[in-house]
């Protein structure tokens, strides 16, 4: 189960005044990822509603599931899985070790939060995965 390479996909994040932000992480061809955790920061000076979800492909044609959504306060951090109870029935509570196939795409969406100064964080998003080689035709 734990064969593979642990990777921390550190990503800088910049939010600007009253503008939504979307960041996509797509599993490359020939790989499978076991999703271990996701951490994301709100570097803005206003609260932002943030959603972490999974799509079948990079074009986001097919929506698979929502992992987590909620308000992240200004300057605060949220992480998945958190161990906290899901606050809506559409959220997936802490069930780690999700296996993602090639093409599957994690989508992190920061909704616009109103007038703000914006902000940036050099490690605003960290997606931790166990990278595995794809096996056979998928």
């Amino acid at each position, binding site marked *: 189960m734990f064969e593979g390479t642990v990777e921390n*996909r*550190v*990503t*800088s994040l*910049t*939010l*600007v005044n009253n*503008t*939504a*932000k*979307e*960041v*996509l*992480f*797509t*599993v*490359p061809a020939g790989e499978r990822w076991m999703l271990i955790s996701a951490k994301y*920061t709100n*570097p803005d*000076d206003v609260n932002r509603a943030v959603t972490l979800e999974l799509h079948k492909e*990079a074009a986001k044609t097919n929506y698979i599931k929502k992992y987590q959504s909620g308000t992240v306060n200004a*300057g605060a*951090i949220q992480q998945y899985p958190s161990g906290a109870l899901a606050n809506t029935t559409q959220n997936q509570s802490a069930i780690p070790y999700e296996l993602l196939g090639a093409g599957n795409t994690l989508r992190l969406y920061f909704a616009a939060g109103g007038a703000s*100064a*914006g*902000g*940036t*964080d*050099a*490690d*605003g998003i960290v997606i931790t995965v166990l990278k595995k080689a794809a096996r056979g035709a998928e």
Partner: protein
Amino acid sequence: MNVRESCPYCGKMTDMQLVDGVWKSKTCDCGKDLAALANSVPELIEEKPDLKAKAEVLP
């Protein structure tokens, strides 16, 4: 490229680039430099414990 971000100017998804182990913004196809944009907004300073501060004495 497997990490992309939305461009705040044109709204389209644009590739990010891996620099020294960190995925960072680059110039969008619309011509806007998103890395420069990152330098134009305040940087988040995460709070860290002050290890030199005196320990608080509980009442």
